């Protein structure tokens, strides 16, 4: 999940009696699975929550380029380098679709970027963890993209049309990302002792941060109910986390790797794996800015933005000259 702890109204779901006529009509539409389109009336809080959610998702794609970009110049074969480049390029593309979807709600990409760079908007906690070995490229694809898919597949049915359509495109690419990650893990797990060690080490470091991607437990999540009523959140955090664990455990077993959780056990009664919760104190520290890479990630984005200012201004100046020349010629 690339959007965590997205602030909604902070209140309980509005009851039908408390709704205005517009709001009731809107909720009926959402309940009937009719998509909301940019020009349709929508509650202010719906619009604001969506901007936060889509914006955070877009920022995650953009910042998410950095941990993987970290290995492009060290990719071990030409094919791996090409695949990784294509994947990171896809992520930039996802960012672009999502910023476009957010723009239909009346916010510009520059405004959102400015909020990211000034720390007023967040991106997923996962990208504040470092990528230390080549196996991390496998683990990121397998676990991080795997966790993202859990959330994004249902979001294809989200109530807001442009977001839903962006998710359809994104999901197609994400499943390729996950498979390429798993393919790297297979090579590593079946490789030399050093490669197996890298693979296990990557799983050890990435496991709990991946579980954190779904956000805190439902009982601690104050923002979920209204978002679920609006169908901009489809499943609860705990549901998705459980689904992720259930699907990932057999994959780890197939790789011959050990998930770093002594309490991990299949529960015959529930049909689910029981597992340990991640350290939520660590999660909140990361959100506050105290993850291992928060400062570096944001600085890298700021540097790209600041260093690129002259390019953006130059191209704009050129476009204006062109437009003026065209007017003069007419």
């Amino acid at each position, binding site marked *: 999940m690339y959007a965590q702890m997205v602030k909604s109204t902070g209140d309980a779901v509005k009851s039908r009696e408390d709704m205005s006529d517009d709001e009731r009509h809107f909720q009926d539409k959402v309940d009937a699975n009719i998509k909301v389109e940019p020009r349709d009336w929508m509650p202010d809080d719906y619009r604001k929550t969506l901007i936060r959610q889509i914006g955070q998702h877009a920022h995650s794609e953009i910042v998410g380029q950095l941990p993987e970009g970290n290995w492009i110049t060290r990719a071990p074969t030409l094919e791996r380098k090409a695949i990784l480049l294509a994947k990171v*390029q896809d992520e930039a593309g996802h960012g672009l679709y999502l910023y476009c979807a957010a723009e239909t709600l009346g916010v510009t990409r520059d405004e959102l970027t400015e909020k990211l760079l000034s720390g007023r908007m967040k991106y997923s906690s996962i990208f504040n963890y470092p990528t230390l070995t080549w196996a991390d490229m496998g683990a990121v694809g397998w676990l991080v993209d795997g966790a993202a898919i859990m959330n994004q597949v249902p979001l294809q049915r989200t109530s807001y049309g442009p977001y839903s359509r962006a998710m359809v495109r994104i999901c197609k690419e994400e499943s390729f990302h996950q498979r390429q990650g798993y393919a790297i893990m297979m090579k590593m797990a079946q490789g030399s002792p050093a490669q197996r060690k890298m693979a296990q080490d990557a799983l050890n470091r990435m496991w709990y941060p991946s579980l954190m991607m779904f956000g805190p437990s439902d009982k601690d999540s104050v923002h979920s109910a209204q978002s679920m009523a609006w169908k901009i959140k489809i499943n609860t955090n705990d549901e998705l986390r459980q689904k992720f664990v259930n699907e990932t455990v057999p994959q780890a077993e197939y790789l011959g790797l050990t998930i770093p959780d002594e309490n991990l056990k299949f529960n015959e009664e529930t049909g689910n794996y029981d597992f340990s919760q991640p350290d939520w104190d660590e999660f909140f520290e990361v959100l506050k800015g105290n993850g291992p890479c928060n400062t570096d990630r944001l600085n890298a984005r700021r540097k790209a933005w600041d260093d690129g200012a002259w390019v953006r201004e130059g191209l704009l100046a050129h476009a204006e000259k062109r437009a003026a020349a065209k007017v003069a010629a007419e």
Partner: protein
Amino acid sequence: MAQVDQKALLEFVLRQGDNTLVLGHRVSEWCGHAPVLEEDIALANTALDLIGQTQMWLGLAAEIEGEGHSADDMAYLRDAWDFRNLLLVELPNGDFGRTILRQFLFDAFSAIYLPLLTKSADPRVAEIAAKATKEVAYHLERSAQTVVGLGDGSEESHARMQEALDYLWPYVGEMFASDSVDQAMAEAGIGPDPAGLRAEYDALIGRVLSEATLRIPEDSFAHKGGRNGYMHTEHLGHLLTQMQWLQRAYPGCEW
């Protein structure tokens, strides 16, 4: 096909593959750090095309060499003195202006040279060139457009582009510094002697740089030593250190 000196043919193919490998690597360094999202995507796209071309060229080089090596072995296990790329492509990226101008200077050459290689007497060369020609036509369109936009943009962008051109210009001449390898290739009908392409190249870049309001330096001095491997810049070693590290540190592994 007439008897072709296989050593010269190998040199010739390495020149193509090492150019695309090293430039593709340099461009890929931008990933996640470009001035706007669209440029991030476009740069990654260019790097991807170049790496794809590298796989074909170095695959052919390995085949010609005939020692059981793969394209990856050629990329990851040769040392700096074995590389046959132009000095131009191994230079550090500098700012975005220098990167895009270098791309343009290289694309302009490729856009003239590769279509001629599609008529190569060696069908393997012709086939790679045919595929690369389509990609390079697009690269040139984009890099030329951006060079014009920034050269004829704001005062600052103009100054930066002029500075980039002044810096890169002494590395342009090496593209046309042909030697016995080029002559052997020309005689065998494998590829044209690049020296004969200078006028067409100058005309092409002259049009674009003039539209970009940039001034081509008068000094025609050319740094050389990349395409014949005699003397690379200090930068190539650092690039290889990073690129080849995993293959060197964990030899013989599958990835």
